[in-house]
């Protein structure tokens, strides 16, 4: 079989498959090949129950807000390097930073910034003399705990968890600092509101989640959520479980996903529970739709990454410079 014939056969097979998907009531994807399997998800499932109606439904969102809303945007970054090992125990140098950019009259200006450079290591596995040597570097030294046995990869993952915690702490800190200065300002944070205490969440705080690792819905509700048309939202649901009970959430489709992956242009929005959630949801959705412009290209997550959040990332990267 010549390559041309083989190519025709592949194309034909693909065409037939896509037609079959459509005939079955499905939609076709972007056709991108996956070279490697995604890593296993840490928390793939969560629990939620409807707040707005009895089941999750799709609701059309109004036109994008025409005027720019003054608001602040917060995000954080983290970097780390395995500087060396004592035996098989990793010694990691890390950097975390978080910032708030304040948008006034369509212009973004840095408002708050925190950054920290530190050492992370499983201190239990190190001798006192080694730990003392690490302290002598002048950098703060943090313990990341230990697994049941030494493991060259798992030990690093534990350290990364510690780094992520410190990054989230920095994010919470800059948001709190900004909140103290501007108690009535809207703040949009990148990611979940879980890390923020209830007092912080009481205010005008929105979490915009781009990754959909944890799915709170199931069955028809999930399909409704993940197949939302462009400029539609789901009805509001409540996360269930401990302090998360106070967080209300909904999905919002920013861009048409037909011809793309199912998660294309899909974000999940979180807000502290309260009557204001339903009162202001239409306005918030219109606002977030308007944030599709400017696009955050060339970032590959541009379909879900709000431009101001993208700018916070760029700002933090610029502040970090060529940190190594």
């Amino acid at each position, binding site marked *: 079989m010549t390559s041309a014939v083989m190519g025709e056969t592949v194309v034909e097979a693909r065409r037939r498959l896509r037609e079959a998907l459509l005939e079955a009531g499905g939609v076709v994807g972007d056709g991108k090949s996956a070279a490697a399997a995604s890593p296993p998800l840490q928390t793939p499932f969560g629990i939620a129950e409807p707040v707005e109606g009895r089941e999750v439904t799709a609701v059309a969102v109004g036109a*994008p*807000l*025409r*005027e*720019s*809303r003054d608001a602040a945007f917060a995000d954080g970054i983290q970097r780390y390097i395995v500087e060396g090992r004592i035996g098989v125990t990793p010694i990691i140098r890390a950097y975390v930073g978080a910032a708030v950019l304040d*948008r006034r009259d*369509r*212009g*973004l200006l840095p408002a708050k910034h925190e950054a920290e450079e530190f050492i992370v290591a499983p201190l239990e596995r190190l001798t006192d003399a080694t730990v003392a040597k690490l302290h002598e570097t002048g950098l703060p030294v943090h313990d990341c705990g230990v697994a049941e046995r030494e493991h060259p990869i798992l030990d690093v993952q534990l350290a990364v968890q510690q780094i992520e915690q410190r990054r989230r702490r920095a994010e919470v800190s800059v948001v709190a600092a900004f909140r103290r200065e501007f108690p009535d300002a809207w703040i949009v944070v990148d990611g979940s509101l879980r890390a923020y205490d209830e007092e912080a969440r009481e205010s005008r705080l929105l979490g915009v989640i781009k990754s959909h690792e944890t799915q709170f819905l199931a069955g028809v509700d999930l399909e409704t959520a993940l197949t939302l048309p462009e400029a539609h939202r789901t009805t509001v649901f409540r996360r269930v479980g401990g302090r998360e009970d106070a967080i209300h959430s909904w999905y919002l489709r920013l861009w048409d996903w037909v011809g793309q992956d199912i998660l294309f242009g899909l974000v999940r929005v979180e807000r502290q529970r309260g009557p204001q959630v339903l009162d202001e949801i239409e306005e918030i959705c219109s*606002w977030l739709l*308007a*944030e*599709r*412009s*400017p*696009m955050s*290209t*060339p970032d590959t997550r541009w379909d879900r990454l709000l*431009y*101001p959040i993208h*700018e916070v990332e*760029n700002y933090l990267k610029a502040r970090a410079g060529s940190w190594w």
Partner: protein
Amino acid sequence: MVVEGRKDGRTERRTVEVDERCDTPPVAVPPDPIGRVVATERLPASPHEFHFWTEVETPIGIGAIVRVEGRARTVYAVVVDAKAYSDLADPLHEVRVAAGIPGEHVAPTHRTEIRLWTAAVLRQVPQEPLQPVPLAEVFLASEQDVQVALRMESYVQVAEPTGIPIGLYATGGVSAPVYLDANFLLGPESAHLNISGVSGLATKTSAVEFLLKSVFTHFPHSKGRIAAVCFNVKGPDLCFLDQPGDLTPEDLEMYARLDIEPTPFDNVHYFAPFKADGININTLRSHADLIGSVQPLVWGLREVLDYHEVLLNRDDLDAKAAAFIDFLIDRVVEKEFRDEWGTTHRVRTFSELERLFRAIFDGLEASGRGDTWRTHHIATIRKIRNRLLNISTRCKGLVTDDGTSEDLPFGTFEDRSLYVIDVSGMDQLAQDLVFTRVVSKLREHLERRDLGVDHVIVFADELNKYAPEDGPDTYVRKMLLDISERGRYLGLVLFGAQQFRSQVHRRVVGNASTTMFGRMDMDELATPGYQVLSRATKIKLATLPKGEMMLRHPHFTQPVFLRFPRPPVMTGPAGVAAYPPATDVPFDEAVMRQLVALDRRVSPNSVAEIIADRREDDVRRALLATRRARPDDVLAYFRTALGPRVSHAPTAPAAAGTTPLQSVEDPYAR
């Protein structure tokens, strides 16, 4: 001080702070930096160029001078290029979010954008070791910074300054006088000025007029006496340099800052040939109030013959022709010359030369001696006769047939005076002759140090025409090349102007140490000579407003943009409007007017009576003599110069075989 000016017909007053040149404390400059140097592997900072960013709203632009303050190094530079861009990855993304309709959707956030400037280094302090520009803060240059950046302190802030103000550098609220070094503009270190720009918009003539005023004001007396000779080659451009022009308060403010009196030239001498009628002067400065100050420019056979190379083309001037002309110059002109047929000739005029030629042809024919006279072939003699006698026709008005001449005052040139020669109404051949002869005479006198001044500026416009890059190698072009290459040693300086620099001989423009560019044509800027300029600089040049120029000078390592005021003299069009040229008048009337212009007491009737029935050539000669002498009693002098009335009764022909009397047509020879 309070200055007064006119603009749009209104008089305006303005208070001007007069700076004491370099002793003035620098203008207060905001201490805040306006930018910061950035360098990447792709856009590194080098010892000669660097990049910096500023806020979107910034006072600087192309041509602005900036200062970079490093820890142990200060760098001065001029902005030569600029870019603005945002983080937009693809223009299609904008189209997509706007649904293809511009203005349909305004993004809630302005994209991050940058103003990235490129600057060319003017100077580094310390100069050695030469290093890349530090990645430091960038400041707008103060007045003091401009002086240092352009290395002007070496000739302005010294005991005997040689700075010649050329205009004001003005950017971002800072203005600073810019000076040329007289040693590099007028010699001996280097010399010459060249100005390029499109007609009408580049204000080339205005720039030269202003610069001449500045030179006459600031040229150090210790360096000697200076004068300028200007050739008015078109229209009335240079015809009113002694008349005040309209100046706005802004102009007057600039004059005050540059320490130049905004007054017209007070010592201007005008020269122009006659028209073909030999009595009306061929100039647009012919208004009755001004014609008295115009000297006729009249040359005779000797003046022409000395520069025959200008008038005869290469085809005419073969070796045989040149030999015959040399024979005429050496043996015949203004000498007693006895031909083979017994006639003695004294050739001083074209008429007398024609009589010599006639005698040769007649003698050869009568004697049947063949076709050679004194080794010169008759065909050569005929050719030279035709060419030379044709000159008096083509250059009628400039070249006289009667031997009189009226010339520039070589030997008595006055310090800081202008000599304007109006050749605008002349045939191209005559223009070439005037230019060549005047410049040659200047050169001769400067070599002998007896011109009356030590330095002469020669201003010639339309260098495209006189010294073209290609085309025939004319005598005028040779002359311009000679000035360009050797003039500075003599004190002979060329201020040249042209529309297209690329079309002027490269050695003429290349030898000009100082170069100015006004509004330029984009096609011209696309020629190889402008490759060193950035695209932004070219675009600025192509859109320069009147009164702005780009300047290159040996002390400046990069071109600098500057403004200069309107010249303090009446422009050509304004002059023609204020002093409409007189129409040509009949011979008698013209004589009467010219005498009245010399002396208001002269009565028209008495002039008419004196010149009645007199030969026009005699009247012309007497008028020229009177103009040259400028006596107290003009009429009496004119009458004396004209001589007694002589009968014009026909003279009986000489008897056959008798040698004719010498100059029988000259009644005064009797």
